[in-house]
């Protein structure tokens, strides 16, 4: 699971997809493709974007949701919190905060 997460984050296009989903969660494949091409001038095929989304979904960073006939992609930041929990010490144990 951790390997999937770091692999997902290692690619700049996938980080851009996460940036765009941060601006607005719940996007169709078409909207994500539009944002990448129009806002970021990234010339990636729809199939390519689908593959990036599959990697993000495997890492748990993107979740898909069916609503009627449409399929939306939502951002899930929970896996990122696990990174923070792993390396960033909790507030109570920070030396500077223990010092009066």
């Amino acid at each position, binding site marked *: 699971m951790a390997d999937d997460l770091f692999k997902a984050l290692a690619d700049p296009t996938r980080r851009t997809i996460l940036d765009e989903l941060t601006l607005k969660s719940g996007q169709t494949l*078409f*909207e994500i493709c*539009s944002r990448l091409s*129009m*806002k970021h001038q990234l010339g990636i095929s*729809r199939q390519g974007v689908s593959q990036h989304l599959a990697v993000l979904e495997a890492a748990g960073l993107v979740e898909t949701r069916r609503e009627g*006939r*449409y399929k939306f992609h939502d951002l899930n930041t929970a896996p990122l919190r696990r990174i923070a929990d792993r390396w960033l010490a909790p507030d109570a144990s920070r030396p500077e905060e223990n010092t009066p």
Partner: protein
Amino acid sequence: MKIHLTSVFVDDQAKALHFYTEILGFVKKHDVPVGEQDRWLTVVSPDEPGGTELLLEPTGHPAAKAYRDALVQDGIPLAQFAVDDVHAEYARLHGLGVHFIQEPLDMGPVTTAVFDDTCGNLIQIATEPA
């Protein structure tokens, strides 16, 4: 050569005529019976009565459903219409109960939005760069 006619497959021609005229604001141009149930049914923009016609075509072919379902699932519009102001048109159509699956999005010089035409298709509206 010029583009005289384009088409969208619609589930129900009567329902489509209502949506494309009463809601979107196009006007009926041709309505000719074809066969037992189908009609040759076209609409045009009131701004361009002699302009490109949009054929509201019956979804008779068995492949049409699979084709349209696949496009709709991925949010891909079947047609794009030009409007003066996407944000204003969004507000107008939203007020009439039209369901948008992509709200107005400013992308550099182009602004777009995508809605469901209630007849099985997604339609994109766009404000063309000045």
